[in-house]
C-alpha cells in the first residue's frame, strides 16, 4: 500500500515536467544567460520591460570589448531592433550601435566600433529572414555591439536606448 502511494505521487512531478516541456518549446531558456546588470524600461510604451546585460568582456590585446544585452518585453508594445540604432552618429546600414558605455571615472563616452566602411561591429547590420528584429510582449532577444576601450576603463555605465542606465558594470 505504501508502495502504491509513493508510485502515484511520483507520477505528478513527471507529468508536470512533461507539461513544462510541452509549453516551453517556442521560447528559449533566456534566463540561463549570465547577467551582469539589469534595468527597467524608461520608454513609455514598453510596459514593464527590462533589459539584462549579459556580457562586458574585453580582449587580451587591444581593448576590444564585446557588450551583449537581452531585451525582455513584458507587457509593452513591440520593441524593435531599430530602437537600438545610434541616435546621433551615423553608421552605414545602422545596426544596434546605439548602446553607449560611459567611463565616469575617466570622463569618456565610448561609441560602438566601426570599420573603415563605416559599418558597426554589432548585431542587426544585415537583418536576415530569421533575425529577431521585432520583440513582442512575452518575448526576448539578445543583441550586441563592440567597443575599443582604453586600458584605464575598469567600470562603465551602460546606456541602452529605452532603458534606465546601468551603473558600475565591471569590464571583465
Amino acid at each position, binding site marked *: 500500500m505504501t508502495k502504491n502511494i509513493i508510485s502515484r505521487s511520483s507520477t505528478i512531478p513527471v507529468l508536470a515536467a512533461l507539461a513544462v516541456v510541452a509549453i516551453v518549446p517556442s521560447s528559449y531558456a533566456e534566463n540561463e544567460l549570465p547577467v551582469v546588470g539589469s534595468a527597467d524600461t524608461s520608454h513609455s510604451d514598453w510596459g514593464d520591460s527590462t533589459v539584462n546585460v549579459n556580457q562586458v568582456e574585453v580582449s587580451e*590585446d587591444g581593448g576590444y570589448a564585446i557588450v551583449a544585452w537581452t531585451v525582455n518585453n513584458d507587457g509593452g508594445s513591440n520593441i524593435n531592433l531599430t530602437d537600438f540604432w545610434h541616435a546621433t552618429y551615423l553608421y552605414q546600414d545602422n545596426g544596434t550601435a546605439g548602446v553607449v558605455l560611459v567611463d565616469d571615472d575617466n570622463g569618456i563616452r565610448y561609441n560602438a566600433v566601426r570599420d573603415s566602411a563605416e559599418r558597426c*561591429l554589432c548585431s542587426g547590420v544585415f537583418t536576415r529572414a530569421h533575425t529577431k528584429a521585432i520583440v513582442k510582449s512575452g518575448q526576448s532577444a539578445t543583441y550586441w555591439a563592440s567597443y575599443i576601450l582604453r586600458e584605464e576603463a575598469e567600470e562603465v555605465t551602460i546606456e541602452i536606448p529605452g532603458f534606465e542606465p546601468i551603473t558600475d558594470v565591471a569590464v571583465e
Partner: protein
Amino acid sequence: MFGTPWATLCDGLDWNTVGKVITTVSASADHHSAWRPLLPIAAISLLLTSCVSGGDDGSGDEGSSDNGGSQGNGEPIATSLSTDTSWGPDLQFEINSLERLGEDTVRLNLAASNIGDERIQFLDLVTAPAGNSSTPDGINLIDTKNGKRHFPLMKTDGEECLCSTWRGEATIQPGEKKDIWVAFPAPPEDVTAMTVATSASPDILDIPLTEGEQEDTDISDAPVEEPKILSLSTIQEDIDGDSARDESGNETSIMLSSDVLFDTNKSELTSEADDTLEQVAQEIGDSSATTAEIDGYTDNTGNDSVNNPLSEERAESVKEKLEELVTRDGISYETAGHGSSDPVGNNDTKEGREKNRRVTITFENQGG
C-alpha cells in the same frame, strides 16, 4: 565560457534516474490504464528533447568538408553566448580551432549546433549582406591587437568564399551540428589570438591561433582575390561633449566642436578655444607625426555658398593657432573645408547636427 543551457537539466537526469522514473510511472499506471503505454514514451521524449549531446564530437553532419570537425578531445575552445535569431541560445556556435596554414592563410573551424528542440533553418544565418546564400561569408575574424577586421578569402573562380557550403542542406535538426570552415587572410606573425565575429552571435573573444598540423594546399594554395582587411575605429567623446577622438590604428583624429571654437557664422577663434587647442598642440608635439590635417565641417542647415568657405576659413584659423602652439619642428599642416559633406552625425537630430559642426585634426599617432 558559456556552456549548453540545457546542461543542468541533463545533469539531473541520468539513465539510472530515467530507469527508475519509467519503472515507477509504469507501475503507477495500473490505475490509469489508458495512460500506461504513453508515460514511458513521454518520459523518453522528455529526455531526448532536453538531453542533447553536450561537448561530444559533431554527430556526423552531411555536407561538411573533411578536416572541418572538432579536434582532439572533441571539446570546443569556446561557444557563443546566444544569437540574435529566432532560436536565441538554441543555436550555439562552437569554435573548434583557428589554424595558420602557410604564411598567408588561417582557417577557422567551427560548428553550428542545435541544442534546442525545433529544427533550425540555417540557410543564410551567417551569410554576408551581399554574400552567397548557404555559405559562411558573413563570418569575420577580428585582429584585436592591430584593430583590423578580416573578411573571408574569396575564390577567384566563382566569386564565392574559400569556405564550406551547405547548399540543399540548410536545416539543422535538434541535436545535430553543422561543421563549418572558413579561410581568411592571416594576421601578422606576432598575433597569437583572434576574435570570431559570426555575425549571428556576440563576438567570441581571443581564440588562440595554432599552427595547422596537416598540409592542406587545397586551401593555402587556392587562387583567391586580394584579401579584404578593414581598419577599426571608434569615437570616444569627452563627457562634456565638446570634443571627441576617433582612434584608428596608428592615426588619431580629434574632433572639436565648432560651437566652442567659434561664434555663430564666424571664423575667428573664441577665447575658450585656447585651452582646447593647447591640449591638441601638446598631443601633436608628443607624437612623431610629420603632417597634421585640419578639416572644417558644418551641419546641413544653410547653403553651400556659406558653409563651404566658412568651413575652410575655420580650418585655417585652427591651423594658424596650432602653428603658434606646437613646439616641435618639422610638422606641416594641410587644411580643407568640406561644408556639409561627410557628416558623422544624423542631421535630422539636434544632437547630430551639433556633432557635424566640427573641426577635425588628424595626425599619425603610434601607440595612441
